[in-house]
């Protein structure tokens, strides 16, 4: 935690101790760079860094490294997401070097959703690495200046490495220990899956603190608005690894149609307020796919609360 890896805005914000906001953007299905910039427009104003997904949900989009570069050139701080689903170790290490050369130093290492989740279920799943092995490889490249094969690099890449955390699905007891493994491999920040169950998060974070992991890595908790009970139902049945408790689905269902959007925002704000209070949480990660405006309203509202608290 002492070495500053990149001196980038994201890492500096985390190390300054402020409550950090990252936001996920979806790279468009387009070869026009303006479409990438458009995707970042709304949440880019609020976030300390923007995550650019890498074929999220196993769907085809413009590549993460390309979208990251476009955004980075436009002045945004980005987190390059890299999944193990589509590339073998040769392509992975090549991409890591390329990313660092392009100035993309924040890398979130993911296993990746399975090919069957997306629009090309016929595809070959690669998974030559798992996320932990990808972290370890990136760290070896950075610290030892060599490929996994032992072949020397003429210039070491710079990385601030992160991993994913999902406290909301089984095996619950193993999840904090998995973080420990990822930290050992090189993770210095974590971004979690959507949190709709604060109690579950609290017990997870208790174990994380018991292991002292919150002092070794920054933990950001995933949040996002629900649009309706239908989205909630979709997310918990169709999006891998998302848990939405019945109580929240019920709350959305009981709200009249014209109030649903506001209710979704309200729920998210409530969750963020509770998450902020948990010791060891370094920030939030806003995921508001196709609801960027709602995401922005939430961050506005939360910001307002900070100002109120300071008064």
């Amino acid at each position, binding site marked *: 935690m002492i070495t500053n890896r990149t001196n980038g805005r994201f890492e500096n914000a985390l190390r300054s101790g402020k409550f950090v906001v990252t936001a996920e953007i979806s790279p468009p299905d387009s070869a026009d760079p303006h479409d990438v910039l458009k995707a970042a427009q709304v949440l880019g104003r609020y976030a300390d860094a923007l995550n650019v997904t890498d074929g999220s949900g196993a769907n085809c989009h413009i590549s993460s490294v390309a979208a990251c570069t476009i955004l980075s050139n436009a002045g945004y701080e980005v987190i390059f997401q890299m999944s*193990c*689903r589509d590339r073998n*170790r040769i392509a992975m290490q090549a991409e890591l070097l390329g990313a660092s050369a392009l100035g993309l130093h924040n890398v979130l290492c993911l*296993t*990746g*959703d*399975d090919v*069957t*989740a997306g629009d090309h279920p016929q595809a070959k*799943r690669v*998974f*030559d*690495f*798992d*996320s*932990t*092995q990808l972290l*370890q*490889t990136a760290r*070896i490249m950075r610290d*030892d200046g*060599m*490929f*996994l*094969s*032992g072949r020397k690099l003429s210039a070491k890449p710079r990385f601030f490495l992160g991993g*994913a*955390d*999902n406290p909301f*699905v*089984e*095996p619950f*007891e*193993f999840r904090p*220990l*998995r973080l*420990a*493994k990822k930290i*050992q*491999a090189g993770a210095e920040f974590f971004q979690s*899956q959507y949190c709709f169950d604060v109690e579950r998060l609290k017990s997870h974070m208790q174990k994380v603190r018991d292991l002292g992991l919150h002092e070794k890595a920054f933990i950001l908790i995933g949040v996002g608005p629900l649009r309706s009970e239908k989205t909630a139902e979709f997310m*918990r049945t169709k999006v*891998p*690894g998302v*848990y939405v408790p019945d109580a929240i689905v019920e709350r959305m269902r009981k709200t009249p149609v014209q109030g649903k959007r506001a209710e979704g925002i309200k729920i998210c704000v409530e969750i963020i307020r509770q998450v902020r209070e948990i010791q060891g949480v370094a920030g939030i990660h806003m995921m508001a796919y196709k609801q960027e405006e709602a995401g922005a309203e939430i961050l506005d509202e939360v910001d307002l609360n900070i100002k109120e608290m300071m008064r």
Partner: protein
Amino acid sequence: MTLLNRLRDYPHILEVAYQFTEKVFQLLNPIFQRLGYEWADKLLRLPEKIGKGAVFNCQMCGQCALHFTGMTCPMGCPKNLRNGPCGGVRLNGFCEVDATKKCVWVEAFERSKKMRVYGADIYVLLPPLNQQNMGRSAFINIAFLKNSEMPEAWQMETGLRHDHK
């Protein structure tokens, strides 16, 4: 589930059997040496496939990680994960990809807790699979050839040898 499959729910017995098999192999080493490991590998492939296939649904990856993974074969995971579960596990603890199957890692973790000898090995960081070992005898690979083909930088970094001490 067949009777042999059901053995998987007794990981504390399996790990002892594993330990025992390893000892037997060490004792038989002079024979394998005389035979040459290449030949020994060829001889053992089929029995290994049948034996481990029946109990663990072995996929013959050639680098058995069973005692690192609660005596549960990680090759049964559609993503072949060796270091823990992915984030896609279903709420009932079933697999993201195959909804009819329990997550390999949910089972592995439960079983590792029952294991006295190798239980804590589930926290060891495992290297990526060596695709060249596919289809070969893991017994010969692990017991005698050690992990000579583990990525060089990984070996330097962790000092971990994929052996069973």
